[in-house]
């Protein structure tokens, strides 16, 4: 295959540039394996990964213009492009700095409580219904792939975006959390979401995460509380 890699060292290069590499393919070859081939055999490439299996999100890149995980994206013969994940400052080549967004997500996930939970509260305040909602959101690996593609985020930059909204939903469903997470969701742009489902389409953990169902439930709960806006989107 001909793999065009977008290269950029922001402290040296005036702007990003493309470089084309010939990469021999094999059956079931992944994009990460193709980039590794270039790094091992042709030229050093700055790229990042750790888990090799859609658990960490560190290998997220644009492949032919679509945000993917290099670790589970299969490649094929022909010409293809790989570029850094859009919308983030490039550290070098395919490595981007997602820390500001990921810190915001991490802070959102932090549970808010008046006092620590006791063993008794842990065992009496959870329901199986809540646990069933929570367990699937756990598989969000906070990679930002959904936020990159989200049209609502483009139209309304103030919208916190799907991956952070998932964090709000997680704590809204968590009976141990005592903050007003519905208010947080609405203030963060719950009604700016266009309900287009692009997030689920690009989500690399889509077997577990069904964004639209979660957004619908958040919206229903917000409506019941009277937390609506004048011009909701995607209704």
């Amino acid at each position, binding site marked *: 295959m001909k793999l065009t890699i977008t290269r950029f060292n922001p402290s040296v290069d005036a702007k990003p540039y493309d470089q084309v590499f010939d990469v021999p393919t094999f059956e079931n070859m*992944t994009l990460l394996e193709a980039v590794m081939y270039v790094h091992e055999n*042709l030229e050093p490439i700055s790229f990042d*990964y750790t888990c090799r*299996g859609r658990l960490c999100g560190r290998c997220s890149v644009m492949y032919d213009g679509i945000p993917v995980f290099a670790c589970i994206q299969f490649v094929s013969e022909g010409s293809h492009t790989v570029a850094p994940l859009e919308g983030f400052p490039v550290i070098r080549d395919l490595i981007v700095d997602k820390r500001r967004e990921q810190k915001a997500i991490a802070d959102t996930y*932090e549970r808010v409580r008046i006092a620590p*939970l006791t063993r008794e509260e842990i065992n009496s305040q*959870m329901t199986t219904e809540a646990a069933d909602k*929570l367990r699937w959101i*756990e598989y969000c690996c906070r990679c930002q792939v959904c936020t990159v593609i989200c049209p609502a985020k483009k139209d309304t930059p103030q919208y916190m975006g799907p991956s952070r909204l998932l964090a709000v939903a997680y704590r809204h469903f968590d009976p141990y959390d005592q903050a007003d997470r519905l208010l947080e969701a609405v203030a963060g742009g719950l009604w700016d979401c266009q309900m287009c489902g692009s997030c689920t389409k690009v989500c690399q953990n889509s077997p577990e995460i069904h964004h639209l169902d979660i957004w619908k439930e958040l919206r229903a709960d917000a409506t019941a509380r009277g937390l609506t806006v004048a011009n909701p989107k995607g209704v």
Partner: protein
Amino acid sequence: MDKDEQVMAALVKAGPSKEVPDAEVSGKEPRSPWSEGVSRRSFFKLGGLLAGTAVVGAGLGGCSQEGGAKVPDSASSGAATKGETEIGYTVYETDMLVIGAGFGSVSACSEAARLGQKVLVIDKGPYGFGGACGMNWDVVYTWSPKGTEAQDSVFARRTVNKQLFINAAKSDPYQPDDYLPIINWGETLNDRNPDGSIHLKVDMPMSQQAEWGFPRHWLDHFGKADNITIHDYTMITDIFVNDGVCIGAVGIYLPTGEFRVYRSKATILAAGGCTGIYGWVTLSPVTNNVPDNTSDVEMAVFRKGGRIGDSEHAAYDMMGIVPSGWASSEGSMFGGDSLDIEFMLDKDGVAFCMDPALDQDRMLVDRIYFNQIVAQVIMDGRGGPNGGIYLPANDEIRKQMRYMYLRCVNLIEEKTGADLREEPMECLIEMYEHGGTPIIDDNMMSTEFAGLFCVRGAATLAEGGGSHQNRNRVLGGYAMRCAMEYIKKSYKEPEKIDWQDAEKEFSRLTDLRTREVSGGIRPITIQRKIQRATYPAMGVIRTTADLEAARKELARIAEEDIPKMALSDHASAYNRDWKDAIETINLLQLARLSVEATYVRPETRGSFYRPEYPEANDDWKCTLGFYDDGKGGLAFDKITWPDVPYPA
């Protein structure tokens, strides 16, 4: 991280590199009260690629072009050293430095938060996205309902330093260390009984387990704590030693290549075990362990003259490698263990574990015995083309499979179109944990370097072969208590600091980055050679012939390849070639220690079996503390620990 950015913005940089963006240089933000970045600079000569290591090769002759890699080809022969160069670096000051941001570190941070200790945490990757804590896999948490003391008496059957565990357990205010702290760190543990209470996967008098654990929440929790500052994307390459005392660590801020010195009163090493020496399958060694774990600090301790123990000990499991390296991950692999013995097949479809001559009951409880049976089948030529055995993902296995593995099977089938019921997957024996850590005393402190505490120090799991999240939780907290006690009672402010110790390291790193060699070999090429050489020797069955072959090849790599190691990329900003080079030297050293520490033991011990010495030998019931003999070779001490009884 935001705090990180603030601290960074407070710097006035002295860096010589024009590649460091100006944004990093502004000095307008207020300085963080607990961690100040102060710039220093130094003039010194570059050179000494492997100075202080026992792998120094002699000659530079016989240069030949390696592979098809583009390598700078200087006009001169041999290594070209630059002249006198100015290297700038930034100094940060903290009372307590914690290297690593996984299970051990979180446990240490939990104690720090409880006791009000300010801490600076270093993460090699982006914080929250590294190691076993930084990925979304479903962890089974284990604890003892009777408290850590009782649990450690179970866990420590193969532990050599028992006094350490008694100390840890007795000083643990959190007994029993069950799900209570974990849930208060943000988890929901949402595998529940119908009444909403926690469902225990295992509920025994001495051990309880709960699954559906996602420890990234712990990192969220401690990342937000007021007393914890995080410097991520920072690779520690050396400890900072003054008058024989560890007063911090030094390394590189990877995004820019900036050199950093961390001055601390006490330093806790809490990085994960390194299995990066064990083979290679397209993206990873034969392991589910992570690529950031390359024994950087442990091998720095060795280079400084410290003793390293337990590198012969590792922990093994079964891991699928089909279709290729992308399936060797917690997130995409299908593997088996001793619960699946009836389904495990050799290449002819024979369920070899069910041989009447074998003890099937023992396999269930004795993982080492089970691993050796599998290894023997492979050695006998009954394995597949990649040296593995076969396991089908049949309906029966799927029924008992944890969800996190079932989703891996689904992924493989969806992506490849294969039906793993019909096509059994080839599984290799993976090394998922590994020792090779500094020798420590009963209070977690390095026996050579006061001020350095090691959560996974030698003899903590010893023959158990590495670590375990539960053990890291117990010992991380204990390391923090010991380090705080050290600051309070033993630490003395140095009269004078000799910065040359750090500057020598920056000289080494700069030399690695900038050196040009005729017929140079790229570090990644050498790294693969190390992995290939070590794989046959560091498995479950280690023959003398395989050990000798690995010794020879590793020595050859040290003598012939390492002096020719040169980069194709000389930039400072996130230079993967540079990182590879630093890691390659560490991996070579660890590989050499691992092979050597097995080779000198005329016995079978822990997870490894030596066919020529099939029994354990009581003369070797000890920890081997390996050190650089100063003449390019290795020496070791036999260290024994008192066999103290556990309290009832």
